């Protein structure tokens, strides 16, 4: 059973088309990366997924049934723009959010304390939000998202503003939740995190999906056309006809090959001219793919 299925959803505000015929599927027990430049339609898509706004057309299916608000009890959403009541005690806030998600006050309180223990923030529970640092607030918000043990966890830029230690703490938490069968949707433009964590991605640009699939599929769709060479001696092989671009450093060069070029021919040429320590055909990073697909033109 799919956790999320968006079927050709569209949304327009005034003259601006925010999302156009966007489709995606998220499996249970996976992390899904929703990528795209700013203003691509990521947040608009998420809002339609959880019924904050209704799509102009298309269908949203959660947990195998067409969207109803009842399904929201199984969804946890951490928005990019965080919000907590400034003057309210942290533990009261966690209980309030837990109750909104259908927990009773006692359960919400117990779970809130357990999570706070685990994320090493228990001392903050009896303070007011305004007394906490940004990073601490973020952890509290993270807990509020997970308190009701949701089966679908939606995280919009979850690690922004966190120091590396805390980022890893939250990251490990998410990995553990995934292993328990939860589906996690990541919305971000931090490609390195996505590459490390996500099983599947959709790359969105100007409101439509321009690239999607499992990480393997996506990467294999791109040729291994980058070469890293470490060498000593004659560097004239760098002018070989297969080479499209070349960045040369001391004893090292990073090359981009022409489409359809034969890397093996280049290797033979290089070996004939110089002493080769390393010759590696590198698969493109997600960042390369992102830039290549979106065309480097950020849609402001």
């Amino acid at each position, binding site marked *: 059973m799919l956790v999320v299925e968006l079927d050709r959803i569209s949304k327009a505000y*005034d003259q601006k088309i925010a999302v156009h015929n966007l489709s995606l599927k998220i499996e249970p027990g996976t992390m899904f990366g929703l990528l795209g430049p700013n203003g691509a339609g990521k947040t608009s898509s998420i*809002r339609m997924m*959880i019924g*904050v*706004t209704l799509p102009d057309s298309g269908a949203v299916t959660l947990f195998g049934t067409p969207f109803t*608000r009842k399904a*929201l*009890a199984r*969804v946890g*959403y951490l*928005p*990019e*723009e*965080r*919000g*907590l*009541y*400034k*003057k*309210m005690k942290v533990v009261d806030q966690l209980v*309030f*959010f837990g*109750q*909104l*998600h259908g927990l009773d006050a006692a359960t919400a309180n117990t779970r809130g304390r357990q999570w706070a223990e685990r994320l090493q923030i228990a001392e903050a529970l009896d303070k007011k939000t305004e007394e906490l640092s940004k990073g601490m607030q973020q952890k509290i*918000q993270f807990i*509020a998202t997970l308190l009701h043990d949701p089966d679908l966890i939606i995280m919009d830029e979850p690690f922004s503003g966190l120091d590396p230690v805390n980022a890893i703490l939250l990251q490990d938490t998410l990995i553990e939740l995934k292993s328990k069968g939860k589906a996690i949707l990541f919305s971000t433009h931090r490609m390195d995190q996505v590459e490390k964590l996500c099983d599947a991605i959709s790359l969105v640009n100007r409101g439509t999906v321009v690239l999607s699939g499992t990480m393997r599929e996506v990467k294999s769709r791109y040729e291994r056309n980058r070469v890293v060479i470490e060498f000593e001696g004659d560097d004239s092989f760098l002018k070989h006809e297969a080479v499209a671009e070349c960045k040369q450093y001391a004893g090292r060069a990073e090359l981009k090959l022409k489409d359809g070029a034969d890397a093996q021919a280049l290797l033979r040429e290089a070996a004939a001219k110089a002493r080769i320590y390393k010759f590696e055909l590198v698969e493109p990073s997600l960042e390369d793919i992102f830039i290549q697909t979106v065309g480097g033109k950020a849609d402001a």
Partner: protein
Amino acid sequence: MHEALLVAKREYLERIRSKAFLFMTIAFPLLISLMFGGSFLAAKLGGGAKHVAIASNDAAFAQSVAAELEQSKKGEGAKAGDKVEVVAPATAADRTKLNSEVDGKALDGYLWIETADGATPDASYVSRSSTDLFMASNLQDAVNRALTRRQLVKRGASPAEIEGLLKTVDVKSVQLKEGKLVKSDSMKSFLGAYVMIFLLYFTVVFYGMNVARSVVEEKTSRIFEVLLSTCRPESLMAGKLLGVGAAGLTQLGIWFAAALALTGSSLGAALGKDGLAAFGITGTQLAFFVVYFLLGFLFYSALAAGFGASVSTEQEIQQFSMIIVMPLLVGLILMTYILANPTALPVVLLSLFPPCTPVVMYLRISSQMPPWWQLALSVVLMVAFIWAALWVASKIYRVGILMYGKRATLPEMVRWMRYS
């Protein structure tokens, strides 16, 4: 409904527990007692003892006026230190001297009277302040009584006859209330109505604006983003109105309970045995007060919620609050007229116009109970207006709370209403 109640509970507790609530609960009655008690006291004390001179070319008449003034001292507003000096027969040189004395603050003022046989005397009061109405009206009375006395003496009336003719009668006001004659003190009743209407106006505006402010706060802190993933915007708005309204009622409840307790205590007995009733405030009136507070609050806070959702900063709310309270202010400004003419057609119409209803209808109730059908009609009309306000506000609200940046224009808001 469950979520709306949760939101309401949170809003309510947050307000009840806030320092601002405690402060208001204590400070507002103090403010009111300062305002009204203060002016009451000031009227009693006046501006300190007055020292005035009566100057005239006719010594006998000047003495007579001074005597009348002394006589009236026994009445209200007079103080032990008051001094009346007679300068007669006065000359132009005296006048110059009096002028310099007033200028030098040795005198508060002087009354200059010129009499000629057969003609009405010409009198003028010279003082530093042009607004000493109390003194001016006392002098006027004294001069007229002295004049009448002189005329009566001329016609041969005996001193006993003169005293009898000049005797003044105090008119007591009695009100017919629910079929019973009630001795009322129109000044105290006016004061009572004034305090209540001020309270009504203030609480409706304060709690209405409170709604707008908290919508903007949740918008700027981006809490809506989280809340909307579980709550319908309608529940959020309903919860907010419920919670804030309940906080307002709680505050009013505390004030009324305190007022009742106070009037029942020895302090109350010292102030007047009848307590609230002495100020013309009955249980019926209190009940209507609560009804019109709730209706007014719901109407204005619905507008405020819609408006709050369409702006992004607190400053914009300030400007808006000035405009939105206009209909309520109309009632306050016309208060004296409404209290005096509770059944005049314009007043009746105004009291049935929902934005004005809470203040104007309550004023009518404190003056004279309106016919039941007008009360019923006003409630029905208000409920209809509240329903419409809620409908429009909720449409604007559900789109507006996710829009940041510049304030929405009217056409934009109309478009928002079509989104949902």
